[in-house]
């Protein structure tokens, strides 16, 4: 999978974030400050405005770096630098490769997750986006070991990320704004874990669509 998939993924990301803007705002209003959907929507809208300027012979890493720098300079809040670093590290992991195989996809996801941890210092169970990213990385790694193809690897990651987002509901938060709430955060899904699951699902969906076009 190459630049077409990555740009499709990015476009699809912008679409799902915009569609789920209100849902993410609502989740964040419950245990945060009510801006998460607005923040990401502002970021991905800015990404879309820049995507067409990407030079024709760009590789996946170039597109990921564009997302990274744009999110960092437009999102703000906690999610801006965290997701920005995720894409930045993902771009670094895939380097100048024009085509990404299963191993490269796993490296991309792993680097993204590690980027978030590097900046945010959260662990699984802290009720943050890490609760989506880490299971996704684990599932992708397992799928690769089982010899699955790129689409299957991303689908496994997306399934795990969605389960991970759901798994944040009963938790007390230890990072981010929800941590101020103590026990009152219980019963609410972490907005960042939800948006990350949406982004990873977008990766899987666009990979499957590209595949079927190619096939």
């Amino acid at each position, binding site marked *: 999978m190459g630049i077409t998939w990555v740009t499709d993924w990015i476009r699809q990301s912008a679409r799902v974030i915009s569609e789920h803007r209100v849902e993410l705002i609502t989740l964040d*209003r419950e*245990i945060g400050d009510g801006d998460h959907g607005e923040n990401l929507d502002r970021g991905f809208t800015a990404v879309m405005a820049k995507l067409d300027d990407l030079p024709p012979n760009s590789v996946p890493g170039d597109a990921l770096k564009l997302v990274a720098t744009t999110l960092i300079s437009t999102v703000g*809040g906690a999610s801006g630098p965290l997701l920005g670093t995720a894409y930045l590290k993902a771009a670094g992991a895939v380097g100048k490769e024009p085509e990404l195989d299963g191993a490269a996809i796993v490296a991309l996801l792993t680097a993204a997750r590690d980027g978030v941890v590097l900046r945010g210092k959260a662990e699984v169970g802290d009720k943050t986006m890490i609760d989506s990213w880490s299971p996704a990385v684990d599932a992708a790694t397992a799928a690769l070991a089982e010899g699955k193809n790129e689409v299957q690897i991303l689908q496994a990651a997306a399934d795990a990320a969605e389960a991970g987002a759901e798994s944040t509901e009963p938790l007390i938060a230890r990072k981010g704004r929800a*941590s*101020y709430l103590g026990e009152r955060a219980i019963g609410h899904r972490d907005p960042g874990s939800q948006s990350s699951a949406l982004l990873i699902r977008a990766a899987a969906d666009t990979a499957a669509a590209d595949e079927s076009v190619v096939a």
Partner: protein
Amino acid sequence: MKKLINDPKNVVAEAVAGISAAHGDLVTVFYDPIYIVRKDAPISGKVGLVSGGGGGHEPLHGGFVGFGMLDAAVPGPIFTSPTPDPILAATKAVDGGAGVLHIVKNYTGDVLNFETAADLASADGIEVRTVIVDDDVAVKDSLYTAGRRGVAGTVLVEKIAGAAAERGADLDAVTAVATKVNAQTRTLGIALTAPTVPHAGEPSFTLADDEIEIGIGIHGEPGRERIKLEPADAIVDRMLAPILEDLPFASGDSVLLFVNGMGGTPLVELYIVFRRAAEVLAEQGITVTRTLVGNFVTSLEMQGASITVLKLDDELTELWDAPVQTAALRWGR
């Protein structure tokens, strides 16, 4: 949602345009990206002070830019920390060769975005220090959490560090005094109503007619506890107890007592709160030698108040008294 605004997306940009129109003698406003700089910046040889964070807390921080306080303020969108770009631009704009201090309220977003900006500024050869303000006793502090929030105490840090920088203290000294103020400041806030973030369009939380939130932040985050409305005196007693326990304020101490309104609470109520808070401190043998009352660190139109106590010594008192000339805090000139 009922507000005196135009497009919710333009709230911060239009408000800073208003700040420019009203206080053009004190500040210069930049729009793309948005930041507010002291009219006479950069001042050669003076440590530059930059603060910032989400909008919706006015007059924090833009109202504190000027002589004896901040050199620049960087407002993000409502309740959303600014990105590194305007922080970097502001840092460059106020660097007078003596280094720049970032005063950052302890929220993950603020910390991370200022961190990135500081890295980029360092790469450009500007020496940057950061002081994280975390005065909110409502939040349990621990290595394993995001830690305490930075709330109303930020004004005191900005004022006192600003005075030190104005009189020529170097970056180490300004950083040290800002750190000291933060260490000696404790705040607790409560809310009677929730704010409505313009782009969200609905109140951040819902309170019944007889409920209040204790231990509220300044971003419409719900507090730690919800209780039935009580008389003001009982609420003040509840607010002061954890403040006085947390920092061992002792009989004989001198303090600055700061009663801050959350934006929608009228001054008449803040004075009722002040009266009781001063009474309780007097009962404990603590002397209130400096005071501040008003809406300084707000949360849009939220009704509520916070009480901040800062333990003073001669150094801090002198720096507090030093002249300041900003839109929201002014004396001595």
